[in-house]
């Protein structure tokens, strides 16, 4: 997530304990082989059953899931039997790794496969191979490109969130009373459910007839204020809600950064006669760059997942002005049950954001390197 991972290499590399008997090792190997064969056999049986070649009558694919779990246990036990102490150590990482492979890597690869299908879950005909057909459709889908463009706007607004969060962090870092109260109050929106906030702010406070914000705007002379009828106002209203919930996260990160600043450097600047404005831009801001980059990066990653508020407040309206990629695909599935096309859109999005984040990391590295070099 944040700072680049640093590794002090562990010292326990020496093999402890007695050499492992050959019989135990071969038993372990047999166990792994047996488990793997069992898993493969189960998959094969289920495929044969599913295609109707060998009707066994499985109700669902759960047997394969159980076979995977059994294989995982066999692999873990086998590791210990074959390798002894290093095997025990491998057991720390194996469960998480095997879990991740099962629920992230495999479904993602499966997603690439679905993306090449023309598959409507609600129609009676099963999946048809479609190749790059979905990609061609995607290229011609103005609503999808519109939602991608909206993501650019939303991501750009992260910088505004960052500026506000930095300001709040500075406030909390100043010499104030009741710091803990303010910190808790500022952090509270972070713990709320986006769906509840969709109602609390989006549907009630920003309601155009008797929502408090509309009443207030009328009082100060805005005629018939609405928040979700013109594209830019609607987009900003969504952004305000999202920012309200997530600014606390960046604020806390930046506050931690401020509190870790070396005191002497800041004081030295004061002695040199720098005023507060100068010492902020010359000292505090550059020193805070690594933390800032981390905060903006993580926030961007989460921003790219924005969906819940849009789904619940505007459903992408007006005219797709507030649509995010996630909320658009949500509706593609909800309204048309089109799994193949929806997954193709999602996979395309994944590739796009990976490229975007790699570029962003490059820029981030350059930014922070300049600071540390000085």
């Amino acid at each position, binding site marked *: 997530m944040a700072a680049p991972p640093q590794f002090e290499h562990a010292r326990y590399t020496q093999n402890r304990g007695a050499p492992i008997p050959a019989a135990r090792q071969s038993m372990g190997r047999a166990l792994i082989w047996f488990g793997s064969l069992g898993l493969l056999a189960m998959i094969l049986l289920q495929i044969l059953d599913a295609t109707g070649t060998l009707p066994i009558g499985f109700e669902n694919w759960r047997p394969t899931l159980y076979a995977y779990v059994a294989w995982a246990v066999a692999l873990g036990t086998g590791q210990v039997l074959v390798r002894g102490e290093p095997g025990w150590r491998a057991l*720390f990482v194996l469960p998480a790794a095997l879990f991740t492979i099962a*629920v992230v890597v495999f479904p993602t690869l499966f997603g690439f496969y679905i993306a090449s299908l023309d598959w409507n879950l609600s129609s009676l005909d099963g999946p048809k191979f479609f190749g790059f057909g979905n990609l061609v459709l995607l290229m011609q889908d103005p609503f999808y490109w519109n939602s991608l463009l909206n993501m650019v706007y939303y991501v750009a607004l992260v910088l505004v969130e960052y500026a506000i969060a930095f300001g709040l962090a500075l406030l909390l870092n100043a010499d104030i009373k009741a710091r803990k109260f303010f910190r808790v*109050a*500022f952090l509270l929106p972070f713990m709320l459910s*986006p769906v509840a906030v969709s*109602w609390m702010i989006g549907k009630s406070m920003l309601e155009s007839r008797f929502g408090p914000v509309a009443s207030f705007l009328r009082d100060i002379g805005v005629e018939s204020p609405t928040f979700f009828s013109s594209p830019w106002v609607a987009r900003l209203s969504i952004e305000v809600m999202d920012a309200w919930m997530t600014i606390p996260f960046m604020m806390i990160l930046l506050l931690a950064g401020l509190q870790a600043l070396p005191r002497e450097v800041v004081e030295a600047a004061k002695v040199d006669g720098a005023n507060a404005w100068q010492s902020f831009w010359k000292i505090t801001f550059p020193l805070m760059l690594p933390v800032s980059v981390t905060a903006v990066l993580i926030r961007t990653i989460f921003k790219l997942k924005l969906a*819940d508020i849009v789904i619940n407040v505007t459903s992408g309206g007006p005219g797709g002005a507030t649509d995010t*990629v996630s909320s658009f695909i949500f509706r593609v599935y909800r309204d048309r049950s089109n799994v193949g096309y929806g997954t193709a859109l999602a996979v395309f999005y994944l590739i796009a954001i990976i490229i975007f984040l790699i570029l962003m990391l490059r820029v981030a590295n350059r930014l922070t390197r300049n600071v540390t070099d000085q």
Partner: protein
Amino acid sequence: MAITFDDKYAESKANRPPNYALMRVLIYGALLTWTFVALFPLYWTLSTSFKSAVDVTQGNLIPWIDFQPNWKGWRSLGLSPDTIFGISTPRDEFIGRFINSIITSVGSSMLALILGSLAAYGLSRFTYKFGFMRNDDILFFFISQLILPPVVLALPFLVLYKFLALLDTYPGMIFIYTLTVLPIVIWIMRDQFNTIPRELDEAALVDGLSHWGVFFRIIVPIAMPGMVAAFILSLILTWNEYYFAALLTSTNAKTLPVMVASQTGSQGISWWTMAALSTAAIAPLAIVGIMLERYIIKGLTAGAVK
């Protein structure tokens, strides 16, 4: 931005800059303004749950002065004092969803904490080599899952869960929520384990404990604050999760956010009922959050500052 360090490092009153009083006013003014921004929506929701139709349309704000609070919103949920012991279908529905939310969020946070702590401990203490992957690569493999937007997994999971008969079940929801928080848990816990000196492990190893013995008897008790932080943060994220729940649950495992969302969608639902429902949905985590605030901060800032 003039507030930066002026106050913090002013040694005595004599040293204070001439505009000191003005600065204080500005700082506290800004603090109070944002406190209002942060808390008003909560106040609005809570107070609306005690309003009746007239008070809503007139935009009355202050109870007992502007409007007379009543239990209308809570009564429609079956949670007001006079209906709490009666029979109430909305309350049964609400409690059912509430329990579903607890089962899926606590279950997945526990699972993520167990899997994540083990992996993080391993990665912070031992040198691994799985094929071409070294420790750094394994860590990156875990953390990079954070980038994956839910939308990429949602539809494949819909299809896979259909095949596996896991749609709308607790285990199905727990698995998918675990994967969404596992990278965060691994990140926080590795940071936590890295702060525990290795000499401790070595001493315990010399005393004859195995690596697993060291982990459970020595390391886990010391790493407890980090574990609480990781658990609370996972709990917040999974309790509030909507996207997967909306696509993958229908009747059995439907969680609270899905219920709240389905109510907002329906026309003609009264504001006081929605306000009461929203309050009830956010209250548990708001309370947990206020009480365990320092753990949340610990979790959020893990590894961010050296």
